């Protein structure tokens, strides 16, 4: 009999894992809470560093995992451990018995309205990175369309590295996302002055630094080291942003037609809920805790439970995909090992 692997989460990690499991001859079952596959990446427009359309990546992944059993709009009602197996009960009444569960539950975008001082949901011209990608994808957003856009600000680290927001970790991809979006906006609004308010620029990945240099030199994007402390709205409905230029040691103030908040990655409460059913440990940052953060990032301390992607912490797309493959390989080795 073909071994069943339950994959919780139909984002890119889940899809990639399913496609790899299929290639190895197993039966993956994807349980996806929402009505569509692809997770956060499906909402994105283009991916750094090569500006690949996110749509292409997601549709490739969906195509290569189409033979998996996929339950959309299905949540985990409960999981309990049998002797060697896990019994996964879904909200649609289906119950799956499997020896292997792969958590690809991903992250949740920080709710920007929690940073009250930035006024998301209060000031009309304050949007998030996700809203901006949505606009890139659909072209629909009254906060941008038909408005005169002469100045745009990007606030890095919204809800990241912020103990007050109860997320002290760095979300890793916001810096490069902000730069990517800043360049895209500059291309769309060449006359606009674009400001990036950052605390540290953390551009660790391949070609990320090139992006930064390009943004500076070719697009003239202003990088201001200093966290935005206060946003207010003026009588025209534009936002006034206050920050300190910490490199100059002077407070600065600027009026912006659009302020984009780079919401960070925070743990997904759904993955915490499912994890608690199996008494899986949660790390201090709220993400799932791997059995080892160096050697075994995809393993949990429990037999048969594996992790891949942003459920264990902020990850980039390639890292997520690599982890999905790596988790599949671990599952595979374990199945082979047990068959012997």
């Amino acid at each position: 009999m073909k071994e069943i692997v339950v994959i919780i989460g139909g984002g890119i990690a889940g899809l990639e894992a399913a496609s790899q499991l299929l290639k190895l001859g197993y039966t993956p079952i994807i349980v996806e809470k929402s009505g569509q596959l692809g997770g956060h990446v499906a909402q994105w427009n283009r991916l750094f560093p090569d500006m690949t359309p996110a749509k292409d990546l997601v549709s490739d992944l969906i195509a290569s995992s189409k033979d998996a059993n996929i339950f959309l709009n299905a949540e985990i009602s409960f999981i309990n451990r049998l002797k060697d197996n896990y019994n996964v009960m879904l909200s649609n009444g289906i119950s799956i018995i499997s020896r292997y569960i792969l958590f690809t539950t991903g992250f949740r975008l920080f709710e920007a309205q929690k940073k009250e001082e930035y006024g998301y949901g209060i000031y009309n011209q304050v949007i998030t990175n996700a809203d901006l990608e949505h606009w890139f994808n659909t072209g629909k957003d009254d906060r941008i369309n038909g408005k005169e856009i002469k100045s745009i600000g990007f606030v890095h680290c919204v809800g990241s590295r912020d103990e007050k927001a109860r997320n002290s970790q760095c979300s890793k991809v916001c810096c490069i996302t902000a730069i990517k979006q800043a360049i895209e906006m500059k291309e769309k609004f060449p006359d606009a002055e674009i400001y990036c308010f950052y605390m540290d620029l953390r551009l660790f990945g391949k070609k990320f630094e090139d992006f930064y240099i390009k943004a500076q030199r070719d697009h003239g994007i202003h990088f201001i080291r200093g966290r935005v402390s206060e946003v207010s709205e003026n009588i025209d409905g534009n936002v006034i942003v206050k920050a300190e230029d910490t490199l100059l040691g002077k407070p600065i103030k600027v009026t912006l037609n659009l302020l984009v908040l780079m919401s960070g990655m925070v743990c997904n409460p759904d993955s915490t809920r499912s994890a608690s059913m199996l008494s899986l440990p949660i790390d201090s940052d709220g993400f799932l805790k791997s059995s080892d953060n160096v050697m075994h990032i995809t393993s949990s301390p429990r037999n048969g439970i594996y992790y891949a992607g942003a459920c264990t912490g902020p990850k980039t797309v390639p890292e997520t995909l690599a982890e999905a493959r790596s988790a599949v390989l671990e599952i595979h080795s374990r199945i082979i090992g047990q068959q012997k």
Partner: protein
Amino acid sequence: MFGFRISPSSAINLDNVSRDRFSELCRIEPDALRCMACGSCSATCPAAEFSGMSVRKVLLYLQRGKEEEAFKIMNNCMLCGKCTMVCPRGINTRHLLLTICRIYEKEDRR
């Protein structure tokens, strides 16, 4: 009359900063924009101990419209080129400084 006055805000209002001259500077020396404020230039500068010279700060001051401050710290620049040597982004700081001396003007002389 009261023994005190309304002092102007020390905050820099980026809405009112004129960018014309800085754009002109960047047209001549586009690498100026590549500064990532690492501070190597300031650390190595022999004029730093005399006038607080720092190319990083000069660039920032100019971008924020604080031109007089920039001129003040540039006063002891000896054009020795150490900053050019250490700049990790390969900015031609010497030419940059010379260009500033050419295209900018002190307020009282404008």
